[in-house]
C-alpha cells in the first residue's frame, strides 16, 4: 500500500534519477544552446505518456502489474520486457553512482568495492520490505527540495544572459533528437510505478510528480548553459557537479559540493531498489522452487555488480557507448512494453 504523498514523491525521484552523469552531458552535446527547448518538448511528450501510465494503473486496480497480466504467450513477453527494463535500469544506476564516487570522492579505491557497498544498501532495503523504504524516501524529500532551492538561489548570480545567445543555434533535427533523449530518460523509470498496489489513482498525482521532477532538471540545464556558456559546457563531463562548485554562502561556506551531491545519490538508489523489486516479482512468478527464490536477491545483485564493473566501468570507451546508444534501447523497450500491455488489457477485457 502506498499513500498519495508517497506516490508523488516516488515519481519525482524516478523521473530525475537517470539525468546524473549520462543524460545531461549527452543532451548538451547534441543540442547545444537550445537544450531547454528539447526539455520542454520532452516534458510535453512525457505528460502524455504519464496519462497512459495512469490509464493502465486505473484498469489494473490493486494488483501489481506482474500479477495482472496473467498467463500466456503475450503475458510472458510482457514479463520478459519488464525484466529487461529492470536489468538495464539497475546497470545504469550502478555505473553512474560508482563513476561519480570514483571520480570525485574516493579516487583510488577499486571500483568493485564501491559497487559492492551500493549493492549492500540495496539488499538491506530489499530485506526490510517496500513499506519502510517508501517512508524513508518520504522523509528525505524536504532535504532534496531545500538543496535544490539553495543551489538555485546562490548560483543564480553567476549566470549571464549572453551565454544563451545566439538563440536557436541548432537545427530542428538535433532539437528533436534531444527531446527524444529527454523523453526516454524520464519515462523509463516511470514504468517502475506500475508495480505498486494502490486503490484510487488520479491523473493529477502523476502529472504533479512528473512536472516537479522534470522541472528541476530543466532549471539545472538552464543554470549550466547560463554559467558556463557553450563550448565549455560541452567539454565538461559532469556539468551538474561543476556548477555546485560555485556555491558560496556568505563568503564563508565554500566548496560544499560534496554535501550537495548527496541528493543525486538518493535518486539513483530509489531507482535501483525499485528495479530490483520488479525483477524479483517477475522471477517469483516464473520460478516456483523455494531455494532459488530465497537466494535470488544476493545472486542477482552480485551478478549485476560484476557485469557493471567488468563490462562497462573498466574502459572509458564502453561508458561512451553506453551514453550514446542507451536512450534508443530504453525508448524501444518502454514503448513496446506499453504497447503490449495495452493489447493485453484489450484482450483481457473481452
Amino acid at each position: 500500500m502506498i499513500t498519495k504523498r508517497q506516490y508523488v514523491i516516488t515519481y519525482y525521484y524516478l523521473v530525475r534519477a537517470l539525468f546524473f552523469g549520462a543524460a545531461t552531458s549527452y543532451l548538451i552535446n547534441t543540442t547545444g544552446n537550445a537544450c531547454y527547448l528539447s526539455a520542454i518538448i520532452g516534458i510535453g511528450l512525457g505528460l502524455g505518456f504519464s496519462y497512459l501510465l495512469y490509464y493502465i494503473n486505473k484498469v489494473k486496480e490493486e494488483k501489481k502489474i506482474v500479477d495482472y497480466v496473467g498467463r500466456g504467450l503475450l503475458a510472458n513477453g510482457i514479463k520478459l520486457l519488464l525484466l529487461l527494463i529492470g536489468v538495464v535500469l539497475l546497470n545504469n544506476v550502478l555505473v553512474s553512482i560508482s563513476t561519480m564516487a570514483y571520480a570525485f570522492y574516493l579516487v583510488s579505491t577499486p571500483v568493485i568495492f564501491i559497487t559492492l557497498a551500493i549493492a549492500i544498501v540495496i539488499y538491506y532495503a530489499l530485506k526490510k520490505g517496500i513499506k519502510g523504504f517508501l517512508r524513508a524516501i518520504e522523509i528525505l524529500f524536504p532535504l532534496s527540495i531545500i538543496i535544490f532551492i539553495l543551489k538555485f538561489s546562490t548560483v543564480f548570480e553567476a549566470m549571464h544572459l549572453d551565454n544563451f545567445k545566439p538563440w536557436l543555434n541548432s537545427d530542428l533535427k538535433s532539437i528533436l533528437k534531444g527531446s527524444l533523449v529527454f523523453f526516454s530518460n524520464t519515462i523509463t523509470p516511470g514504468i517502475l510505478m506500475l508495480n505498486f498496489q494502490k486503490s484510487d489513482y488520479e491523473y493529477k498525482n502523476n502529472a504533479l510528480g512528473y512536472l516537479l521532477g522534470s522541472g528541476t532538471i530543466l532549471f539545472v540545464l538552464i543554470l549550466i548553459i547560463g554559467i558556463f556558456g557553450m563550448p565549455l559546457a560541452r567539454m565538461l563531463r559532469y556539468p551538474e557537479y561543476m556548477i555546485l562548485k560555485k556555491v558560496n554562502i556568505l563568503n564563508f561556506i565554500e566548496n560544499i559540493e560534496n554535501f550537495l551531491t548527496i541528493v543525486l545519490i538518493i535518486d539513483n538508489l530509489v531507482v535501483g531498489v525499485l528495479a530490483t523489486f520488479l525483477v524479483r516479482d517477475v522471477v517469483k512468478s516464473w520460478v516456483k522452487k523455494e531455494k532459488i527464490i530465497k537466494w535470488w536477491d544476493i545472486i542477482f545483485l552480485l551478478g549485476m555488480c560484476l557485469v557493471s564493473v567488468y563490462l562497462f566501468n573498466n574502459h572509458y570507451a564502453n561508458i561512451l557507448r553506453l551514453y550514446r546508444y542507451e536512450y534508443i534501447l530504453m525508448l524501444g523497450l518502454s514503448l513496446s512494453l506499453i504497447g503490449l500491455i495495452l493489447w493485453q488489457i484489450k484482450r483481457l477485457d473481452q
Partner: protein
Amino acid sequence: MKKILLVLMCLMMCGCYDYKELNQISIIGGIGIDYDNEYIVSLEIINDKKTSEGDSDSVKTATINGTGKTFVEAFNNAIAKVDRDPYFYQMQVLLISENAAVKGLNEVFDYLLRESKINNSFYTVVTKDTTPQEVFQINSLTEPVASSKIVKMLKDGSGDIKFNKNDEFDLLVGKYVKQGIDISLVALEMEDGEIAFNHMAIFNGDSLITFLNKDDSITYNLLTNKSEGIYLTSEDNVVALFGNKTKKEFKDGKIVITFTADATITEVQDNIDFKDLSVYSKLSQEFSKTMQENIENLIDHSRNYNADILGLGQLIYADKPNSYQKGIGLKVLVEVNASINVNKNGITFEVIK
C-alpha cells in the same frame, strides 16, 4: 549474527585506499610555470614541517621546482620531489611567466581542466620581469603565504586592478574557448621587493602579445565592471567613480558602447565653488570627454596588436551569427558614449584655499 559479520567483512574490504591523514599531505597553495628552453614548474607548499616548529612569527613556505620538456612532464617531475602526498584542492593561484605565456597556453589549460585532483577555482596571473620562483619566495610579515597574499590583494584590496568571480579558472577557460574574444590577465611585477599590479597582459589566441600601459589597464577594468572607487584625472581634477555600468549593443552594422558612472569629487582646483550649480554639469562634461577618449585609446591600442579583448566579435556572433566571420571584431566600427555624472562631493562644502 552471521549476516552482520558478512556485511562487516564486505565493508572492511573497502579498505582505506583514500584515507589521508593530515600529517601525510602537503597542501599546495600555488603553481608557477616558467619557460627557459624547457618548462620549469614551481609548487608552493604551505604546511611544511618547518612551519609547525618555532613561533608563528617565523612561518615560511617552501618551494619545489621541477623541469621537463613539456608542461605535463615538468609538472610530474615537480610532484615527485614533494616529500608528502601533494594536495591540490586548496590551490589559489596559477602564475605564468612571460616566456611561458608567449610559448602558448593550450597545453597548460587543457591539462589543468581535465585533471580531477585539481579544483577549478583558482586565479591566473602573469608575472612580468620576474619568475614565479622568486615570487613564491617573498616572505612578508603579515601574510607569509605568497599565493594567499596575491589573491587577497586582488580580491579584497583597494587597488585599481581587481578580480571578480568571472576570473575563476573554469570560467576563464570558458571565455578562452569562445570565438571572438581574447583573454587578458593581470600582470604582476615586483617593486622594491613588494608586489604591485600595474599592467594587464593581453593575448592573441593562446600566446601573449604585449602588456597594456597603466591607463589602458584601468580603463579596461572599468569597462568590465570589476572595480569601484577608481580615480580619473582630467586637468588637475580628480574624481572617484562608483556604480559604473557598461552596455554594448550591435546595431546598424556598428557597435555602440555606452558607459555610465556616478562620480565623487576628490581633488579639485582652487577656483571651483561648489555652491554654484553649474559647476557640476561642467565637470560632468569634462570628465565624460576624458572617459570617451580613454576608451577609444584602449580600443585603438588593442587593435594594433590584433587582440579583441572587449569581446566585440563575440557580441556580433551572439546577436547576428550570420554576419560573423573571424576577425570582424577588429574591423567593426565602434561608437563610444560615455557619461559621467558628478553628483557627490564628500563631506565638505568648500574647498580649502
